[in-house]
């Protein structure tokens, strides 16, 4: 009964999405007010239907309804309730429902958010969103219906993949998808502008908060995924340049470029066609990413169970949405010109380089990800591209970006000249360089040439970001939320750079074979192995090891790595033990039983690794703070004028 209701709700949702798309796009074109008025009800109706469908799926999982094929494939009666709910998006079909649900949420939010904007424009935005919803709902119903029944129903389910039985599953996909899907709003704003044939500073101001919000969620989602991989896969890696990881990283890079480009368009009406293109490309990369993960064209440990049919369908969808948007772009973009000028050392110039470098980085990741596909399609043989390619080529674009950042945030619009700021800036550079070398050569041993550069750049970014806020506080001038948000986000980035450099340079790891009572040494740490004993969990059993960790004799703690075998799927997973001690992470993973009470263990000490994810979170927080600035609340009112403190102004110069 409930699955049928869910399926019916999906069909209704698809029809409503179709109406939303039709009325939203054709209404303004034909200047039919009644059609325009019908858009928001369609949005609400679609949301209700999608929420119903989602609810039905969740209910089926909670109730252990194994007559539903999707539930039977992904759940089990022994699965704890928490994971029964999370299992809803544990596999392809359910994750699509999550996608569609989040898109409906964003669309509803967009309907509220654009309610005070000009009606034709707002309805076009919602119309484009409706088109996307329609496509996804059609795809789901045609190829990936989660409500299909099994006849006869299975007595019990196949259980959720044990690697997914982890709190990470509850957080990572929903938050990541919120980001992915959120970029559709920016895409819709771009589409609406192209349909209208008009794009101005107001458009940029309207689009900015939506883009930044999606970007913030994407940042958190990617960081969560990385953290989850770190503690669940057992050997301490947190980024592998895996195709699916890249599929989420590329939209992020594009969205970052878009946020900065929107700033220029909003402020000076420049880079209009470029910003438009970025808005289209960011969500397009989300869609391409969806394709890569579900079509089976790439080898990846993350990819969903794929099939060529699903792949072909998504490809058709891509052709319509992205091809359509780019065709519109080719037609409309030439109309967008501006005569504004700026100097070489002006803020616009720095932001231009920001964009060029971010887009180049994105294109590099794209090339590496697609290389196996391209090589095999052109008959050039089977290629494999891994971290040894991505790391150096990515850094090639990113290092200049990081170096320019500290200077760029002080550049004024239109005219260059940093004025008094230049001196403070050089001072911070020297301080950063000193700290960089001190940390690298003083605190730790080892590291490479890039290590002091990495740490130094990160420190400089943080110090440079603090100059303006501190100056304002000194002069008792309020800091606008937009500036505060930017500061927080950049500080987060600086911290991120410092953390990653440290982790890459100073990680100590070792694989050892220990008998009960034996001790291994790694750096200043000592690990005494106390043997293993059997353990049992709600749906697994296995062995748990005990390791007593000390540092220079002082106790750090007792760590218990485990190996679990899940009953239903008979898979063995490594539940490594991770502990934070001061600013480092200690990881211990159980290897294999070597017989005679001896076990192999992997030991790892990683300094500052937790700060990586904390930094990403700080960046996201910065973004959200920036959105809350007053200027985004109103539709048309001009932003209050606030002078950049400390820089030379024309009137002061006389």
């Amino acid at each position, binding site marked *: 009964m409930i699955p049928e209701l869910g399926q019916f709700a999906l069909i209704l949702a698809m029809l409503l999405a179709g109406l939303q798309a039709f009325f939203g796009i054709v209404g303004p074109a034909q200047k039919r007010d009644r059609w325009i008025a019908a858009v928001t009800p369609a949005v609400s109706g679609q949301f209700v239907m999608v929420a119903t469908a989602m609810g039905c799926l969740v209910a089926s999982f909670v109730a252990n309804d194994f007559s539903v094929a999707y539930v039977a494939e992904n759940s089990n009666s022994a699965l704890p309730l928490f994971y029964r709910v999370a299992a809803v998006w544990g596999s392809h079909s359910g994750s699509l429902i999550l996608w569609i649900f989040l898109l409906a949420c964003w669309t509803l939010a967009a309907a509220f958010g654009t309610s005070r904007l000009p009606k034709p424009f707002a309805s076009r935005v919602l119309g484009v969103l409706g088109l996307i919803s329609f496509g996804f709902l059609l795809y789901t119903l045609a190829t990936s219906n989660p409500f299909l029944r099994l006849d006869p129903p299975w007595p019990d389910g196949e259980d959720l993949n044990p690697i997914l039985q982890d709190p990470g599953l509850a957080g990572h996909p929903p938050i990541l998808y919120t980001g992915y899907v959120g970029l559709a709003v920016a895409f819709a704003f771009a589409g609406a502008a192209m349909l209208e044939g008009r794009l101005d500073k107001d458009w940029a101001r309207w689009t900015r908060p939506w883009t930044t919000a999606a970007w913030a969620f994407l940042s958190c989602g990617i960081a969560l995924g990385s953290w989850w991989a770190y503690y669940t896969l*057992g050997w301490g*890696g947190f980024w*592998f340049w895996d195709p699916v990881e890249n599929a989420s990283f590329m939209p992020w890079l594009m969205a970052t470029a878009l946020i900065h480009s929107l*700033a220029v368009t909003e*402020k000076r009406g*420049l880079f209009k066609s470029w910003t438009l293109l970025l808005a289209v490309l960011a969500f397009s990369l989300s869609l391409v990413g969806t394709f890569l993960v579900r079509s089976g064209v790439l080898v*990846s*440990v993350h990819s969903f169970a794929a099939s060529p049919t699903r792949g072909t369908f998504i490809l058709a969808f891509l052709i319509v949405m992205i091809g359509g948007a780019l065709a519109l772009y080719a037609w409309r973009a030439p109309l967008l010109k501006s*005569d*504004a*000028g*700026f*100097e*070489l050392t002006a803020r616009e*110039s720095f932001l*231009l*380089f920001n964009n*060029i*470098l971010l*887009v*180049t980085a994105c*294109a*590099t990741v794209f*090339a590496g990800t697609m*290389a196996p596909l391209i*090589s095999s399609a052109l008959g*050039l*043989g*089977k*290629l*494999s*591209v891994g971290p*040894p*390619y991505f790391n150096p*080529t990515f850094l*090639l674009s990113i290092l200049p970006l990081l170096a320019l950042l500290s200077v760029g945030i002080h550049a*004024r*619009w*239109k*005219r260059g000249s940093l004025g008094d700021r230049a001196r403070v800036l050089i001072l911070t550079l020297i301080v950063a360089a000193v700290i960089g070398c001190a940390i690298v050569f003083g605190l730790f041993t080892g590291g490479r040439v890039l290590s002091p550069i990495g740490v130094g750049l990160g420190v400089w970014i943080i110090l440079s970001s603090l100059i303006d806020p501190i100056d304002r506080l000194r002069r008792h001038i309020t800091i606008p939320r937009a500036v505060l948000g*930017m500061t927080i986000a950049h500080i987060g980035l600086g911290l991120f750079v410092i953390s990653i450099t440290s982790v890459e340079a100073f990680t100590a790891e070792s*694989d*050892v*074979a220990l008998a009960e009572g034996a001790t291994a040494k790694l750096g200043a740490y000592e690990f005494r192995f106390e043997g293993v004993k*059997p353990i049992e969990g709600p749906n697994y*059993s*296995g*062995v748990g090891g005990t390791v007593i960790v000390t540092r220079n004799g002082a106790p750090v703690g007792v760590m218990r790595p485990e*190996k679990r*075998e899940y009953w239903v799927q*008979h898979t*063995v997973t490594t539940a490594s033990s991770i502990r934070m001690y001061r600013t480092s992470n200690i990881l211990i*993973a*159980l*290897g*294999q*039983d070597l017989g005679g009470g001896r076990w*192999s263990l992997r030991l790892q000490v990683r300094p500052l690794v937790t700060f990586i994810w904390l930094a990403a979170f700080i960046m996201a927080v910065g973004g959200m703070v920036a959105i809350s600035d007053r200027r985004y609340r109103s539709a048309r009112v001009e932003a209050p*004028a606030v002078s*950049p403190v400390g820089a030379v102004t024309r009137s002061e110069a006389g």
Partner: protein
Amino acid sequence: MAALVASLFLWARPAHAIAPEQMPTPQLEARYLALIHGFRCMQCQDESLADSPVNLAADMRREIRDMLLAGKSDEQIRDFMVSRYGYFILFKPPFVLKTAWLWLTPGVLLLVGVITALTVIRRRAALAATDLEDNDLTDA
């Protein structure tokens, strides 16, 4: 009960990730680690030989270890693997005619990007020079 659980692990095919044999000298150890991190596991194609839990990976690690102890160079070991499994086994794509485009793309794109940026800036700077008005432009 413990025996039952232990026997489950002997039956389960995957021999989990770690290669506990250590090399006699730190230099060899470093070379060994670098090599096993640079080869793709052919069965779990998304993992390196160092991290893969399957038996084939354990066998390959042993072969690499034996070759290192026999005095083979890193290049000889790499050639050994590539001649049997193809370039696919390397995480780092080689720089040969078929893959040159991949290695050159980032540099070329960066160059094109920088030239484009400078061209745009030159045009805009000219416009700024003729524009005498200076509206009070705020930050962020």
